[in-house]
């Protein structure tokens, strides 16, 4: 590595000796390299792994949805913003998938025993093995619907991560502490767009309202803890989802009035349960796109 290059890309042309890196951002190392991943006392490793997987899948699936805006966003600035938010969430997902794999090494996809945990878990599980909330997987819709979903998702996740910073699991606490800083920016971005569109033209208001109403049915599920989440919350390792509702409602109540939007009626809900592996068809097509290359070429390195 020379120290006098002017461009990040100059280094691509350097000889890299024995280090496996031929293109920038590839040849990933274990993101938890050197981190103590001991499981806290009184917690089943399988529970900790399952819990980490839930939080990882929320971020991974949401990240994939956000990157689908690449080349499709209304303006270049928004495309860059959505891709950046997706990248932050992908980073959180990588750390959490690695945390899941370190807690329970038997967990990764049975089809790919030789891959790092994060790759095996991301690419070699089927839809029924994913544990993300349904909100993360539903189709993007138009830009208004996507920012409505991002507002709901990041408001919920920020409240969750903020509490997770005091987890007895040092890895989850550390991932959460970084995530809080990142998701704070995501929530502000989404909230500002909801206000701008809701308080904009008649057409933008109509589409923002429709986007919010189309997304709201997946809100109730966010506050229902699965058995694993209840056990880990009781052990001061995880977060009780029901306890996030007041903060969530408070933030939404700060956004809707300046946006001129009416709160969706509470009966606007569906029976969904992504945490138990029950998913919509939208996840199947999302995973087909996300996993296709890795499954077609399992031996490939890049």
């Amino acid at each position, binding site marked *: *590595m020379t*120290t006098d*290059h*002017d*461009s*990040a890309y*100059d*280094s691509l042309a350097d000889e*890299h*000796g024995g*280090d496996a*890196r031929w293109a*920038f*951002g*590839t*040849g990933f*190392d274990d*993101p*938890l*390299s*050197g*981190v103590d991943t001991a499981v806290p006392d009184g917690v089943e490793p399988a529970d900790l792994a399952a819990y980490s997987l839930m939080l990882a899948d929320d971020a991974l699936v949401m990240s994939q949805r956000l990157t689908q805006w690449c080349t499709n966003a209304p303006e270049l*600035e928004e495309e*860059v*913003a959505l891709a*950046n*938010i997706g*990248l*932050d*969430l*992908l*980073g*959180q997902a*990588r*750390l959490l998938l690695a945390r899941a794999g370190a807690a329970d090494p038997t967990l990764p996809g049975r089809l790919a025993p030789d891959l790092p945990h994060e790759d095996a878990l991301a690419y070699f599980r089927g839809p029924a093995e994913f544990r993300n909330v349904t909100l993360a997987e539903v189709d993007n819709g138009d830009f208004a619907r996507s920012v409505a979903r991002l507002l709901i998702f990041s408001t919920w996740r*920020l409240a969750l991560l*903020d509490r997770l910073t005091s987890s007895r699991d040092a*890895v989850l*606490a*550390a*991932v959460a*502490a*970084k*995530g*809080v*800083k*990142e998701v704070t*920016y995501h*929530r*502000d*971005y989404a*909230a*500002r767009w909801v*206000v701008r569109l809701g308080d904009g033209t008649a057409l933008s208001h109509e589409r923002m309202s429709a986007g919010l109403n189309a997304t709201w049915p997946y809100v109730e599920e966010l506050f229902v803890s699965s058995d694993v989440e209840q056990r880990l919350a009781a052990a001061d390792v995880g977060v009780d989802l029901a306890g996030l509702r007041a*903060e969530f409602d*408070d*933030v939404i109540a*700060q*956004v809707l009035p*300046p946006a001129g939007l009416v709160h969706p009626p509470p009966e606007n809900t569906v029976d969904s349960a992504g945490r138990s592996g029950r998913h919509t068809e939208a996840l199947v097509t999302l995973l087909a796109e996300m996993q296709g290359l890795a499954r077609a070429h399992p031996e490939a390195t890049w």
Partner: protein
Amino acid sequence: MVTTVGNARGGGAQGGTVSDARAIAESVTDPELPMLTLSDLGVLRSVEVSADGGVTVTITPTYSGCPAMDAMRDDLRRSLHEAGYSTVDVRTVLQPAWSTDWITAAGRAKLSEHGIAPPGPARQRAAGPVPLTLQPLVRRVSCPVCGSPDTEELSEFSATACKALRRCRSCREPFEHVKEI
């Protein structure tokens, strides 16, 4: 940001002291902000040399998804290998989380010289829930091209995870700003 622990004589057959190893690690640059060394950026947390000459470097990620972290690990290993340290372990520490407040004064000056506005102080948080910010934050960021204080934010997101996009109202040049985190 750099603390040094370990046997200062170190080296042995591999011929390096801890200060040599530290100097090498400190000089490795960020692949996305190549005007900054890892020391300038505040991600290099410690460099240790064991009695048998093995080097352990500890770094901390900037953003969770920053793809430069993997490149930094590779560059640290290669630079130290080239200097004769055959055993190099690059470890990650996640806590406490990196803040732009850790970018050194020298690092800030280099950012400005290269047309990137350095970050202001990170937001200090009061107790209670993280506050929502519906209006863009008023940041006093001077244009790194003409020096005018009259600049506006175009987006809190830009070409890399750590930067926002701004524009100068005086000279009209767009520029990047390392946003506070």
